[in-house]
């Protein structure tokens, strides 16, 4: 599969995503500078973590106007996969490709540590390799990860099975204690209605090698790969 990793000024997880895609998964990946206007024929775009434009004003607020964004929207509209991790999730929300917004953690502190998330829907190209209700241990690394949307949007998200990951205890229970940042309904990741755009706050690329402590994050990448294999089969 061909991955494109979008680099905004201030992004910093692009090399990590690149490493995992290339060295762990053995797939091809390009880095794409945000000033580009067009995209090659990628199967999956990754908007990586970091601090696009310093996170100034609001996270993702300025990045959504980058020249590359129009091409990303186009890619998504045509059904291409888009994965926003952390800052990438924030950018996708600001750009309106995903519903809601990400606000400052209720603790008012930056948090970097592994958390547990539950896979609440396997019906996406990003989570199909997981089992329903599976608990994954994946690190978070953010200051603004509190997911918020209005009541109507939340109802819609639930009805449409768009909440893909929720923060839970190691045993899989969603509770306030297991919610690291005060997210609405313990939401850690959501997808769009077409289910081809996913944003999540945890960093799956940080849980992709045994040497670094966990391989739970690999399930996301493996889901994408099997989706890609299936797609290329149907394409013939």
């Amino acid at each position, binding site marked *: 599969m061909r991955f494109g990793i979008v680099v905004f000024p201030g992004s910093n997880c692009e090399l990590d995503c690149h490493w995992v895609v290339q060295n762990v998964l053995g797939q091809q990946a390009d880095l794409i500078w945000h000033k580009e206007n067009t995209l090659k024929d990628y199967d999956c775009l990754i908007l990586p973590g970091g601090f696009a434009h310093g996170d100034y004003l609001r996270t993702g*607020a300025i990045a959504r106007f980058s020249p590359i964004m129009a091409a990303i929207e186009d890619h998504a509209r045509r059904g291409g996969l888009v994965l926003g991790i952390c800052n990438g999730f924030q950018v996708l929300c600001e750009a309106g490709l995903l519903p809601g*917004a990400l*606000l400052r*953690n209720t603790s*008012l502190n930056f948090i970097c540590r592994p958390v547990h998330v539950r896979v609440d829907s396997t019906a996406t190209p990003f989570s199909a390799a997981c089992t329903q209700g599976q608990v994954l241990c994946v690190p978070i690394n953010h200051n603004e990860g509190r997911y*918020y*949307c209005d009541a109507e949007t939340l109802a819609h998200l639930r009805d449409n099975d768009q909440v893909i990951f929720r923060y839970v205890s190691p045993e899989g229970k969603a509770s306030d204690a297991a919610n690291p940042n*005060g997210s609405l309904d313990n939401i850690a990741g959501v997808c769009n209605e077409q289910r081809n755009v996913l944003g999540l706050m945890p960093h799956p690329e940080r849980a992709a090698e045994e040497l670094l402590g966990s391989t739970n994050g690999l399930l996301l990448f493996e889901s994408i790969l099997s989706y890609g294999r299936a797609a290329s089969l149907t394409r013939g």
Partner: protein
Amino acid sequence: MIRAKVYVTLKGGVLDPQGETVKGALEMLGFGGVTDVRIGKFMVITLNGVSREEATSRVDQMCKKLLANPVIEDYRFEVEEG
């Protein structure tokens, strides 16, 4: 020269942990009677070479497009000449 003062505040229903924390800190410091604290942004934008009307409509556009996020925030602004 025109100065626009823009106020961006969190919408009513959105939790403001920073405000809550400041409220708690004020109580701890012995300041009584504080029932609520909300914290937003205050921006001063200086424009040159535009009329007051022009500035007003431009700043409104800036707020809509960039300065505030309608999912979570409200905005309000004033324009001053001089």
